[in-house]
């Protein structure tokens, strides 16, 4: 009986064995599939080229060098309406990156807190967190963006409410911060000569904090002495820089926002559209991350918690030192896809008038130049690059915390 399972002699290849022989069959079908895919794509591409030619259109990226002619409110780099469409696209790209970055950080913070609290022994906290997760997960993010934006513009005062004798609104923190329905106006630091020294002193004090903590740890491990670290760190953080600022005669000053004409002038502006989009994306994606965190924590065997408890660790430390580091291995891979979701969902920005990549390149530029195919292809390329970069960086992090198997 054993002879039946013997492989046939290698010389027995015939044309029919491409179908009948299991060794070759899979290659045959893969080859057919490949040819079919190439043929389909060639047909679609050819069809596109033919139809574009018939309509008298051509694919050209010359429009990127032409004058844009429109203004953008939030400009991370200098931009005028006389600049090119290409530069407008870059401004949009930076705005996308800004909101994606802020959104990822905030969503992670919200998600980790909510995920941990979902497992809280406190019934009320647990239920509140599951209400949060279910509410935000199950309503489309566009609706959240619109709701948060409408609530914001309708509940905060307009700049004109700050005006005159009978002003109905007032600024906060000694007239330094104004919260309006167009955004939040904050004081802006102005750097004069000597600020560099203050900056260097500040950086040195941060280095000092790390050195001090290292020293404290060494003392603890080597000599068993417990040195307090929290208050000395706080002091190191503030005192040297403030002293340098005073000694050098206040080289860093603050420019306060002031109501002039229609709007607040001076200081920094965080626009309402950015706040609404940022907050909506963070709180929406935070709900998904909370579930990832919960899943990660529950994947850690209960024995770990009990063992840590048996060693005398308090619940907070068990979570931070034992459970979360192990849970990260489960949490990180789905977290990557949530970060990608934030980046992609940020293309809904135009709903609140935030000029991101979709608003500039895929919006006004597309409409003014009529170059839909070119603009959309470029848009795809930009988003693909951003997403792949995020995934690349996060995968490096994931590999660094992965369980090392030796």
């Amino acid at each position, binding site marked *: 009986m054993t002879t039946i399972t013997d492989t046939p002699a290698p010389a027995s290849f015939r044309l029919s064995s491409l179908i009948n022989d299991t060794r070759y069959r899979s290659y045959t079908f893969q080859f057919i599939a490949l040819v079919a895919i190439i043929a*389909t*794509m060639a047909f*679609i*591409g050819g*069809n*596109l080229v033919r*139809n*574009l030619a*018939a*309509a*008298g*259109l051509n694919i050209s990226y010359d429009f990127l060098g032409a004058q844009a*002619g*429109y*203004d*953008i*409110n939030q400009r991370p780099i200098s931009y005028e*309406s*006389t600049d090119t469409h290409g530069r407008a696209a870059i401004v949009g790209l930076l705005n996308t990156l800004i909101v994606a970055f802020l959104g990822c950080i905030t969503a992670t913070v919200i998600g980790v807190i909510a995920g941990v609290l979902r497992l809280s022994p406190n019934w009320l906290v647990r239920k509140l967190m599951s209400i949060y997760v279910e509410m935000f997960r199950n309503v489309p993010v566009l609706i959240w963006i619109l709701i948060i934006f*409408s609530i914001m*513009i*309708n509940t905060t005062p*307009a700049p*004109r*409410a700050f005006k005159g004798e009978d002003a109905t609104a007032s600024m906060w923190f000694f007239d330094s911060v104004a919260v309006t*329905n*167009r955004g939040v106006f904050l004081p802006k630091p102005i750097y004069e000569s000597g600020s560099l020294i203050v900056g260097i002193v500040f950086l040195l004090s941060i280095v000092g904090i790390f050195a001090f903590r290292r020293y404290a740890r060494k003392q603890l491990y080597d000599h068993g002495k417990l040195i307090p670290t929290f208050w000395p760190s706080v002091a190191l953080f503030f005192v040297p820089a403030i002293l340098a600022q005073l000694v050098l005669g206040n080289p860093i000053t603050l420019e306060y926002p002031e109501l*002039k*004409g*229609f*709007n607040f*002038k001076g200081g920094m502006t965080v626009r*309402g*559209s950015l706040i609404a989009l940022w907050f909506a994306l963070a709180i929406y994606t935070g709900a998904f991350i909370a579930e990832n965190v919960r899943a990660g924590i529950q994947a850690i065997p209960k024995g770990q918690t009990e063992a840590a408890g048996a060693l005398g660790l308090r619940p907070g430390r068990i979570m931070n030192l034992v459970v979360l580091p192990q849970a990260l291995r489960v949490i990180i891979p789905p977290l990557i896809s949530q970060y990608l979701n934030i980046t992609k969902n940020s293309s809904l920005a*135009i*709903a609140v*008038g935030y*000029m991101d990549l979709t*608003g500039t390149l895929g*919006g*006004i530029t597309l*409409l*003014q*130049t*009529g170059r*839909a*195919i070119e603009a*959309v*292809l470029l848009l*795809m390329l930009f988003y*693909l690059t951003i997403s792949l970069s995020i995934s690349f960086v996060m995968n490096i992090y994931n590999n660094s915390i992965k369980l090392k198997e030796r």
Partner: protein
Amino acid sequence: MKKSVILGAFAVAGLSAGMAAAGTLDDVKARGQLNCGVTTGVPGFAEPDANGVWQGFDVAVCRAVAAAVLSDSNAVQFVPTTGKTRFTALASGEIDMLARNTTWTFSRDVDLKFEFTGVNYYDGQGFMIPKELGVSSAKDLDGATVCIQTGTTTELNLADFFRSNNISYEPVPIETGAEAVQQYTAGACDVYTTDASALAAQRANFEDPDAHVIMPEIISKEPLGPLVRHGDNEWGDIVRWTLNALITAEELGVTSANLAELAGGTNNPEINRLLGTEGDLGGMLGLDGDWAERAIGVAGNYGEIFATNIGEETPIGLARGLNAQYTDGGLIYSPPFR
């Protein structure tokens, strides 16, 4: 990656496959229905009424064309389009014509390959501002926050206006008119800018229309008119001359009241040619002799359409102004029917 390229290519191919050039008239006749692109809702210009029937100044042009071609003013499928989707919808053949507050510009005519078939409303970009701010001229708007409907010529005019006057502003781009109004009324922007006719139309829906003023400056020329695709001149002629028929009817005093009587034949040869009792103008268009009579019969001549939808008697309350007949000092002028 590969999959998204395939899908993208499918989308692009599907989009371009619709670009069959000639024969729109035959397509419309075969379908028995005209696909007409309109706005998503601007009071007076194009908006569904309480019964869901589209009404308005732009809608009347669609209905007139449908009546001329298909003898049925209700054989129109109205396709609501936004500033963003309108050109794609027309270029792809999803709609046969676009009658949607669209400004006739060089690049749209030449580069985007559309054919503007005339002007049914001469408009210009204006500014609306709450009265309480006490601003009387657009040149005093330095530092103001301006709400703009995006995807239009508006944002380019605005940038040019503020640049040439050397004053600063903060643009707030907004997708639709309704959202712009929401932000404007909440005070999130000081000024709202779009075509002056649309400003008047939207102000009519405000709680307190008198608290808002439209400033005297008109910063651009906005000739609004219906448009079709390049490359089908027969169809373009039909849309162009249907609009001209409505205009000529007003000039010659043909109204919905006396239409039936005049169609029996008159002493005025131009009226006779227009209404098909003399000559064969309809045949030249590939239609029958009564085409113009049917078009005018839907809602009357240009002046009547203006008066019922956006005229001074309506809540929109627009004066004829530039849109009066040339004989009354306006710009509305049709080439002769000869």
